[in-house]
């Protein structure tokens, strides 16, 4: 029996269901808070300062069951980390799925500033792709086709992930897979636009989204040229 099935079986007991909601807060939140703090390289005292709280309170909030959380506390922590906070009612199956996916070692929520940097990287990646396409001679086009094919193979497991959910996706947010994906792309095309993007020193955390979106664009242009008349027209003109 899977761990999910065992959790669902225990939830048949109403008292356990109610307790499960509480434990997701009492146990889940301390691990989330600690993970976010450590990702930022902060000590508890720094988080206390950012959130306008005392360090012992942060310490209690990082200990399972040691602190009572209210919405105002969570709002202040969200502000300190500069991340959003979602509080909503959900079916139990959704809470179970969240608890199954939650991994404190891989829990990574970018601050608003990092998200902005990510969007900028996407724009840079797209510009790089445009420039690559616009080189526009036959050899480049052939290289692009080959590149696209290999990239497609390397990234296929990830391409089904909806862009909007990319940060929430366990496939993409799993650090090991990010690295695997990145090294697949970099290893094959160290001088391609993504290799250059990596070399440009863009933060590692912003790369998967940039890669995903940029690669999707490349694949679309390479495999369905009619969709990008400007690029294909330029290529045809150069080839002629």
């Amino acid at each position, binding site marked *: 029996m899977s761990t999910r099935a065992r959790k669902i079986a225990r939830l*048949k007991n109403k008292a356990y269901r109610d*307790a499960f909601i*509480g*434990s997701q807060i009492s146990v889940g939140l301390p691990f989330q808070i600690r993970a976010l703090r450590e990702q930022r390289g902060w000590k508890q005292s720094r988080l206390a300062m950012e959130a306008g709280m005392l360090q012992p309170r942060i310490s209690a909030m990082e*200990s399972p*069951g*040691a602190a009572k959380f209210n919405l105002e506390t969570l709002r202040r922590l969200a502000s300190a980390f500069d991340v959003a906070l979602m509080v909503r009612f959900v079916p139990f199956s959704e809470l179970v799925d969240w608890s199954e996916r939650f991994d404190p*070692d891989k829990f990574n929520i970018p601050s608003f500033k990092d998200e902005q940097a990510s969007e900028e990287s996407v724009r840079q990646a797209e510009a790089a792709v445009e420039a690559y396409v616009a080189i526009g001679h036959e050899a480049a086009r052939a290289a692009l086709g080959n590149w696209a094919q290999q990239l497609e193979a390397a990234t296929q497991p990830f391409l089904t992930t909806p862009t909007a959910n990319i940060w929430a996706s366990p496939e993409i947010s799993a650090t090991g897979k990010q690295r695997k994906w990145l090294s697949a792309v970099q290893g094959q095309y160290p001088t391609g636009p993504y290799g250059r993007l990596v070399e440009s020193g863009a933060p590692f955390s912003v790369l998967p989204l940039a890669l995903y979106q940029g690669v999707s664009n490349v694949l679309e242009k390479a495999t369905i040229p009619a969709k990008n008349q400007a690029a294909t027209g330029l290529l045809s003109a150069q080839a002629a």
Partner: protein
Amino acid sequence: MTRFLDYKSPAGNNLIAEWYCRISVEARAMFDDLLDVLSKKAIWSYPDFKRLDDGLGEIRWKCDKKQYRVIGCSWKEPQGYLLLIGCTHKQDIYDPPDAIGTADKRRRGLQFERKGGICEHQSPEDCTPEEQSLS
């Protein structure tokens, strides 16, 4: 991913499952969640885990104004953790009082005398009222 194992008495009783059924449902849910999270964590650290002497360690959480502890040790494979005894803790006093000594005795019994046994940890889906009334 860490795999949790339960200690079984020489009579074959799963003492972790029995203890689990004696604690409150809130403490049970927290214990389940804590093991779930720890199973995915590469490095366990304070405050949810504390190393004790002689290779023992305790998984820690607070519920119902009580400090709960489950004392155990790494077992066989690096990613196996054997749960030896569940207890509560208040002002440096364990309940049952010699929880650490009992955990150590159980571990040594398993290691050197082949007394007792182990099984895959699996929290009971439901605890009967009889089991709960033992608390």
